[in-house]
């Protein structure tokens, strides 16, 4: 869809929504009110689950906290509803932060499990606190007022709900196209990839969990002043999974999926409530059988939801490539020939196996060093020790005079070390351009708020121009908006190189970049690496392809069975009988 068409669609939808209460009956308007409130919750789940790869069954509990906060403040203390909103947001945000801080360092399933437990706990808590009216709830909640305008009528609060929803969607869409939003989208590629780009995955997960909680809290506030009454039942785990169903039915990877899903599930529920009582007297429970089965079917056969299905039927539009922009600041590279990296006596054991034993070598600024060795020589372990993925049992690594051994991968990345992966780690559902922009994460500063409010546009232009430049440089500049997953594997490796270059690194560590490349592509890659060297970038190359290594590198370190076997110029290594024996097995 072209931007102009998209704007037209937005305007038409906005006009239709604005006119709705004037032409529709009050029952339909009420239905639309609930759809709007539920869509806010589902929107949080889209960000959290569909895009961030985390999930929560306890969103209903957050809605409950928001609703009870304002209900209590406005009825027991006569506070204005807007103060109730502040309290609702503060409480939901605070609770989400605590829960997230406790669970988000653990494997992915602990967060959803704790949200089930938490959802149940909060339900019983609401139901047993005298101040909150126990299971009877709180009634007599005042309507929201702005000056003398009261939002008591369904047709009035309707505008408030949909305005808040539109605002939340706008902020979310902006955020996803900003620096931190790309970090959220990178989460599902695994922590190893994101951390290697300098992204603090724990912080990003926590932020998106809190954001989803805040949307739910806002929805709860609207819900309380819409219903003018709250009781514990709508905040149990069962509605919690209905919100998740909405997100998945609409399309959990898309912002529009929240609204589509909320509408779909709410309308379906409404229709079922008309039909089911004719089948059985226990019909309230048949509804949940139906939704449960629907959800299972959806996850088995259409995990993407409705929105991607619709989008495939819309005409595609490719925007023009990013325009030139003022360049991002560059790092001052160390003087060529000075000591850049010193690996000293590294030792790493896995149980009884010594993968790396007492290996030392040095890397001087502006050189290309090849690290070679037969399978199982310990090259990859060495690689992981340098990049901070593994912690050494002994030994020290010094980068530009600073010890980096023991630092987290993202802190090493921040000191100017960029890497590629032997098993390609890209975000297949993001464009080539966005994948490369991710590489420049550490060179940009825009935070969540700046991204959501579109205050980051200058930096964003610069970083996109930079990414485009790197794409051109590696020869992938002709289709910047292609999805990375559509590239052949060899090109994906090259894309990783472009991503590494976008970080403006002092040291690039490449893990078998030539694997699977055709001869012409290998030559092009070698030319690129030579060009980088002439610019002062230092390169450590772990590689199997001897022809590629021999013609390119300045020096070689050979590893075998975890120890350093030899070190020297390519010609010396080629002539070394020990190296021949290691590779060819005793044929000298």
């Amino acid at each position, binding site marked *: 869809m072209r931007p102009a068409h998209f704007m037209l669609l937005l305007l038409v939808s906005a006009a239709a929504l604005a006119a709705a209460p004037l032409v529709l009956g009050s029952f339909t308007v009420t239905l639309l009110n609930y759809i709007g409130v539920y869509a806010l919750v589902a929107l949080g789940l889209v960000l959290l689950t569909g895009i961030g790869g985390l999930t929560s069954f306890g969103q209903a509990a957050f809605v409950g906290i928001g609703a009870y906060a304002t209900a209590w403040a406005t009825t027991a203390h006569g506070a204005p509803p807007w103060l109730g909103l502040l309290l609702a947001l503060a409480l939901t945000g605070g609770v989400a932060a605590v829960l997230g801080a406790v669970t988000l360092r653990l494997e992915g399933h602990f967060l959803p499990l704790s949200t089930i*437990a938490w959802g149940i706990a909060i339900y019983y808590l609401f139901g047993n606190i005298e101040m909150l009216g126990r299971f009877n709830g709180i009634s007599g909640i005042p309507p929201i007022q702005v000056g003398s305008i009261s939002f008591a009528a369904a047709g009035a609060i309707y505008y408030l709900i949909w305005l808040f929803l539109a605002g939340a969607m706008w902020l979310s869409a902006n955020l996803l196209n900003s620096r931190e939003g790309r970090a959220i989208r990178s989460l599902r590629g695994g922590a190893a990839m994101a951390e290697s780009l300098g992204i603090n995955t724990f912080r990003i997960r926590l932020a998106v969990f809190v954001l989803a909680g805040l949307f739910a809290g806002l929805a709860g506030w609207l819900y309380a002043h819409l219903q003018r009454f709250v009781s514990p039942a709508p905040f149990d785990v069962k509605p919690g999974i209905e919100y998740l169903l909405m997100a998945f039915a609409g399309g959990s990877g898309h912002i529009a999926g929240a609204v589509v899903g909320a509408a779909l599930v709410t309308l379906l529920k409404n229709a079922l409530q008309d039909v089911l009582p004719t089948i059985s007297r226990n019909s309230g429970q048949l509804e*949940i059988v139906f939704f*449960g089965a629907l959800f299972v079917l959806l996850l088995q056969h259409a995990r993407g939801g409705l929105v991607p299905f619709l989008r495939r039927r819309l005409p595609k539009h490719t925007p023009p490539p990013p325009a030139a922009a003022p360049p991002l600041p560059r790092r001052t590279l160390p003087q060529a020939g000075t000591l850049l990296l010193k690996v000293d006596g590294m030792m790493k054991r896995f149980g009884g196996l010594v993968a790396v034993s007492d290996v030392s070598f040095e890397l001087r600024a502006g050189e290309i060093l090849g690290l070679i060795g037969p399978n199982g020589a310990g090259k990859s372990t060495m690689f992981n020790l340098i990049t901070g993925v593994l912690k050494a049992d002994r030994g020290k690594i010094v980068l530009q005079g600073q010890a980096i051994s023991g630092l987290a991968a993202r802190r090493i990345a921040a000191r100017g070390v960029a890497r590629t992966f032997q098993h390609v780690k890209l975000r297949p559902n993001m464009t080539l351009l966005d994948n490369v922009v991710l590489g420049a994460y550490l060179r940009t500063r825009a935070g969540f708020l700046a991204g959501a409010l579109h205050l980051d546009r200058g930096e964003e232009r610069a970083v996109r121009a930079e990414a485009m430049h790197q794409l051109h440089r590696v020869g992938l500049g002709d289709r910047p908006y292609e999805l990375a997953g559509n590239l052949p594997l060899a090109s994906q490796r090259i894309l990783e190189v472009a991503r590494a270059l976008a970080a403006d690194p002092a040291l690039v560590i490449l893990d078998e970049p030539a694997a699977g490349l055709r001869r012409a592509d290998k030559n092009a890659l070698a030319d690129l690496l030579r060009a980088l060297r002439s610019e002062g970038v230092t390169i450590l190359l772990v590689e199997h392809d001897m022809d590629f290594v021999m013609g390119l590198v300045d020096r070689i370190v050979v590893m075998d069975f975890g120890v350093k076997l030899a070190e020297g110029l390519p010609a010396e290594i080629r002539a070394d009988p020990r190296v021949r024996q290691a590779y060819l097995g005793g044929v000298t």
Partner: protein
Amino acid sequence: MNLEIALLLAQDGIANGAIYVLVALGTVLIFTVTRVIFVPFGDIAAYAALTLASFQLERTPGTIWLVMTLAGLALAMEVYTLLRRGEAHRLPMALLHYAVLPLIPIAAVWIVGGQRLPMAAEIALALALVMPIAPLLYRIAFRPLADAPVLVLLIVALAVHFAISGLALLFFGPEGFRTEPLTRAMFTIGTIVITGQSLLIVGASIVFGLLLFLFFGRTMAGKALRATAINRTGARLVGIRPAAAGELAFLLASVLAGTSGILIGPVATLYYDSGFILGLKAFVGAIIGGLVSYPVAALGAVFVGLLESYASFWNSSLKEVVVFASLIPVLLWRSLTFAHLEDEDEAEDAA
């Protein structure tokens, strides 16, 4: 609280905890073998108790209709898959598996026709009736998703729970049941009275724990399950079918859950939906063991039982809040001691 009350509460808590032990062990078993966090597991326990109660009231248990519904669905799915793959020769096997086997206990109930049997026979029949439920659910809901991320499997598990709890209301009705006591024996040690029932519960969980230990350590099937738990691909390479291992895990775990249901039946009034909370409390125990360690899960389950018992003395209406909120410090402890970031989600990109 004086010592006597403290001991009384401890006895109560240990008996409750022993029930959770059985369910927690089954939860860990299913999770390690199939990566499914099987939320409806507690429901199986509740259905076993409700089934036994139906026998005792000389009614036809609703379990029959539940099993028949699930068996019909599973059979239809299996037949469809086989026909589509052009493997019609495997149809008789599928028929045996998904229709004949689950129907054997149902046929037995028909033959008995509402007469009272000796208690042991009724218990055996109740267990046999609920045993197919979890493997059938595995076939219907989880096997088509065997390679999906843990997260998706967990969402499916919760959706399945709500779907079958709706069916359970339809088949069991809304009223609560309590089964006849298994034993009325009482023992007095000093001033403390210990019921035979609680000794039975604790004994059963110890016996089942030992049986599991022997099964995993000494039998081929047990070792195959352990192999699948450690590495599915590797297990497949040495000829273990993960789907079969998964079904076996669900079946074994059902025995554990069913037993716990039979044991809790006489001491608590159970409703069609009581299993959810029961299962989740066992989950809290299992999570203390990180969902992977059997002994720690068992200890965790006992801890939950004790916590619940003391919390209900302190404030009975808030005991659920205390039990579930205790997960937060537990997870905090785990997060500080076992923290590691997962790196498994790439499969999800296919979605």
